[in-house]
């Protein structure tokens, strides 16, 4: 009698760029054993838009608005990181009031982004009632953004050396009224997200990222803080006015006393950060000194000053998703920067997907993928197309290109 020839083997399914379960264009190739995920491969490069190339023929003031369009949700952190980089190159001192205003806008963006994420997370596990509730609160945050900056999404508030709009005395009551609304509703949201049975069932012990993996794979932002790694640009480098404010790392053990690094912990961290952001805005409104809001109000003069700038600068900012880095280099001859490089936080949060997804079920893919709050449009920078054919670069080739670029940049 021969042995049965049917042996169980794994099979592969692609979950491709345009997929109803994923909000972002990213290519997943899963190797599955039944319902269980054995291996994952992630491919990027579906929304490359040549933004960095477009900057080569624009002056820094124009690039602010180009940077704003890297991502719709982070429409403040990209221009602000860019202007931080430019300010460090051209030695521009930002007035103190502007530093506080920058914190307010940054934290307001964090509230918008985290509440949006909470709604999406609820939607991913099929709890659409919560999606509508959270987005109702987000609507109020967007109204406040519109009131402070002029538009709901593309804020256009950043200017090199400060901000473009002040928060005057008569605007403060409206801001405080909105903050009170957030605080009142925050408790309700926390009750729903953290105590509801549906959420606990789907998010606890799901998509675990251990502290070792988070450190090894260089995860950033709430993803890494949920695994217990104390990493936050606002505390580590205390740029803007963060040095004067009461701020600390947000890790899930503040609330629960333990760190699991699962999706539930990531929900906790983001919700606590919303509370922290409300608190930071209140502190800023209290402590904000009077004074100018921009270093050089005459933009024509600022452009002339930037044209003379020679050197390179790096801008770091804690975006809602983690650390965003902008590198910029000016050659002192041209108005446009010699080079501009953006590293969005999602880039670091891609590799942690692999340990998170391994061992999970197919039905957990959307919530685990969404739990890092991926933003592919921010991340995608490199897709090489030559003669109409797309090709991938291997390690040696990439190394060679990297060496060449370093030589080129050294002038």
């Amino acid at each position: 009698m021969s042995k049965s020839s049917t042996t169980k083997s794994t099979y592969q399914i692609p979950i491709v760029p345009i997929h109803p379960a994923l909000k972002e264009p990213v290519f997943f190739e899963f190797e599955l054993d039944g319902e269980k995920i054995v291996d994952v491969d992630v491919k990027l490069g579906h929304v490359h838009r040549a933004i960095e190339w477009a900057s080569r023929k624009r002056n820094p003031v124009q690039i602010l608005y180009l940077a704003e369009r890297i991502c719709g949700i982070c429409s403040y952190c990209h221009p602000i990181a860019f202007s931080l980089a430019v300010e460090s190159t051209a030695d521009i001192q930002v007035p103190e009031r502007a530093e506080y205003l920058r914190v307010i806008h940054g934290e307001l963006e964090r509230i918008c982004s985290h509440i949006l994420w909470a709604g999406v997370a609820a939607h991913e596990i099929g709890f659409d009632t919560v999606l509508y509730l959270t987005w109702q609160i987000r609507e109020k945050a967007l109204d406040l953004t519109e009131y402070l900056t002029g538009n709901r999404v593309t804020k256009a508030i950043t200017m090199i050396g400060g901000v473009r709009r002040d928060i005057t005395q008569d605007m403060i009551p409206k801001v405080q009224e909105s903050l009170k609304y957030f605080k009142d509703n925050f408790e309700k949201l926390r009750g729903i997200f953290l105590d509801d049975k549906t959420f606990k069932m789907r998010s606890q012990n799901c998509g675990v990222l251990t502290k070792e993996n988070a450190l090894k794979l260089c995860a950033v932002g709430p993803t890494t803080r949920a695994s217990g790694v104390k990493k936050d640009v606002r505390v580590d480098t205390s740029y803007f006015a963060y040095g004067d404010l009461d701020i600390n790392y947000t890790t899930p053990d503040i609330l629960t006393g333990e760190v699991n690094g699962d999706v539930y912990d990531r929900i906790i961290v983001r919700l606590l950060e919303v509370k922290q952001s409300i608190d930071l805005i209140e502190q800023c409104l209290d402590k904000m000194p009077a004074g100018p809001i921009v270093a050089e109000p005459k933009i024509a003069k600022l452009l002339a000053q930037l044209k003379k700038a020679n050197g390179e600068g790096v801008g770091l900012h804690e975006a809602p998703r983690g650390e965003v880095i902008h590198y910029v280099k000016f050659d002192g001859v041209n108005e446009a920067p010699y080079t501009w490089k953006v590293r969005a936080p999602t880039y670091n949060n891609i590799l942690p997907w692999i340990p998170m997804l391994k061992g999970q079920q197919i039905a957990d893919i959307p919530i685990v993928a969404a739990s890092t709050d991926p933003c592919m449009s921010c991340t995608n920078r490199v897709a090489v197309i030559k003669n109409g054919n797309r090709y991938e670069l291997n390690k040696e080739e990439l190394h060679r290109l990297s060496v060449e670029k370093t030589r080129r940049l050294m002038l």
Partner: protein
Amino acid sequence: MKFSMLPKAFAQMFKKPWTNKFPAKYAPSNTTKFLENVQAGKAKIIPPVETPPGFRGKIQYDKEKCIGCQLCLKVCPSEAIEFKPEGKKIKIYLARCTFCSQCNDICPTNCLSMSNEFLLADSNLYSKDLIVE
């Protein structure tokens, strides 16, 4: 609480919906025809949510004040402004405009300003409504 969302969901049934149903309670199948009806007084339009002060809408251009210094061309991120050398005046293509109001900030004579008009959708990018001169 086991199902903390239930009481809220029930309470919502007796509340007014949050959405402002602009332009009509039921989306018209033909918007152009609907607008014609509104102008003729046959239908009623539900107004949009009011814009806050400082909203950045359609650009307004005061041609008399303009001195043709071309500074706005220099800062426009989307190159939406064209210079007309014959009259030393500018022409703004709103189809390209990103509504950042950077040109308003740099203008030395304050001849540019932002209005609160935002209903600018048009199938023709060069239509009369989308060109400011």
